[in-house]
């Protein structure tokens, strides 16, 4: 469904220095697939998502959705932003209803849908608050609700659960999966948690840094619903997969990092 070929993107900063965020990246995401994306910080995950969203002009390559090259942003896609990007002047409900409003949904209907999602996100009672009056995790959930509200065919999520606690994260994961089962959007989901990547994804895409490209695609052959223990325990397959991902990422890391390592023990 999403086909990306030879995608390259170089940023030039104000002093003329260049950073190559994406270099000849390729990725295919099937219709209704839930793809999770793992990679070291700064490898180009956000850039890739923004390219798919049609927000960032890229230097070369093609991005096609259903066989048609994308022309900027479209109503088929919605994105959850890593930095939330909430409108500071709009209340929680208005922020969540933002996409619906742009689509011309009538006031009563969009407010109802927004309120419902706000409650789903565990933010009932905060409907009228402004983003500046929320905690970090609450803001993040508003951003998620906003994207879910428009029921897109393609859902682009950039570390959507990074700022919430484990319990909330689990609940939100369940919510997201339930929604995915119901509406079957294609999801590209960036995360730093290998457990999360395995729990949610049909496949896990591993990105490498500089050159930023998809280094490996790992299929997750586990039946859904994927049972998860009540606690942090994990079944063997989980552990195996996450251990594999862990090793692969560490290899990539060691190739590229210049971190002065303490004893990695």
């Amino acid at each position, binding site marked *: 469904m999403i086909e990306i070929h030879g995608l390259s993107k170089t940023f030039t900063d104000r002093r003329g220095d260049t950073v190559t965020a994406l270099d000849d990246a390729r990725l295919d995401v099937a219709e209704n697939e839930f793809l999770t994306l793992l990679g070291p910080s700064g490898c180009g995950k956000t850039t890739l998502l923004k390219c798919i969203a049609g*927000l960032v002009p890229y230097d070369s390559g093609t991005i096609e959705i259903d066989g048609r090259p994308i022309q900027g*942003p479209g109503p088929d896609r919605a994105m959850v932003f890593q930095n939330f*990007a909430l409108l500071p002047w709009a209340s929680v409900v208005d922020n969540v209803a933002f996409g619906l409003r742009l689509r011309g949904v009538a006031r009563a209907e969009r407010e109802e849908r927004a309120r419902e999602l706000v409650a789903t996100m565990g933010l009932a009672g905060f409907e009228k608050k402004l*983003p500046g009056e929320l905690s970090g995790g609450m803001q993040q959930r508003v951003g998620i609700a906003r994207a879910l509200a428009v029921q897109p065919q393609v859902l682009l999520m950039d570390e959507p659960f990074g700022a919430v606690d484990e319990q909330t994260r689990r609940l939100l994961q369940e919510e997201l999966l339930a929604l995915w089962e119901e509406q079957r959007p294609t999801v590209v989901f960036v995360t730093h948690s290998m457990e999360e990547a395995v729990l949610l994804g049909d496949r896990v895409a591993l990105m490498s840094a500089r050159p930023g490209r998809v280094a490996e695609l790992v299929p997750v052959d586990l039946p859904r619903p994927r049972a998860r223990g009540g606690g942090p325990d994990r079944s063997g397959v989980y552990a195996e997969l996450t251990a594999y991902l862990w090793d692969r990422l560490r290899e990539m890391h060691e190739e590229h990092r210049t971190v002065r390592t303490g004893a990695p023990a």
Partner: protein
Amino acid sequence: MTRLNARLPYQILTFALFAAAWELYARARGGLLLPGFFETLRATGALLAEPELWRALYVSNQALVLGFAIALALGIPLGILLGRFRTLERYADVWLNILLVTPMAAIIPLLVMWTGIGLTSRTALVTVFSIVMVIVNSRAGVRQVDPSLIEMARSFGAREREIFTRVLLPGALPAVMTGVRLGLGRAVTGMVIVELLMISDGVGGLILEYRGLLKAPPLYATIVIILAEALLLISAARWCERRLTHWSRTTATRANLAGSPK
């Protein structure tokens, strides 16, 4: 209310200082053209009872209201456009600067030529006086909007028009309102100047009359009343500003200035 009360002592203090300085200076150095504070106060009271004043205010304010409304209706969108479209800005900037610096006395004859000496030219002049303030500040406001909000709006399918109304305008609003306050001040000045130089039917006529007769107290009383009107309008704009941009208190330092940790 508490905030009002907290400010009041300072306002009273500075007003007392101001009045005393005025009165003392006028007594020491004032002549025909510089009345004392109390003299002016008395004259203001007397003038307020004159129907002529109210008629003059009515006449003058027609141009003010119309002219400033046009300045807002044109200036805010234009400022936002300039902030948004680089190319447009580069071409329009020179003219904006020219508009800013051209002494209005110089364009009055041209205005008379084009629009006569009626309400139209007075209105036009008020607009010309105030619009630059609105445009320049609206443009500066747009530059302060977080670009990731524009990105977000685009990702939800916002067209350019919607980016304007839903992102740029609200985001720039604090700066726009600063421009509105400045513009209001300039519009009132414009209202007076146009009458001093052109058709002096309203308050400008009063000023010319009192000055010509060297009647300093009513002259300054007229000016006091005009300034009072301007201040009233500016406070009204402030009030609107606080209502429209209350959100900025959750993001701007202003809110924190009142107290610091105990």
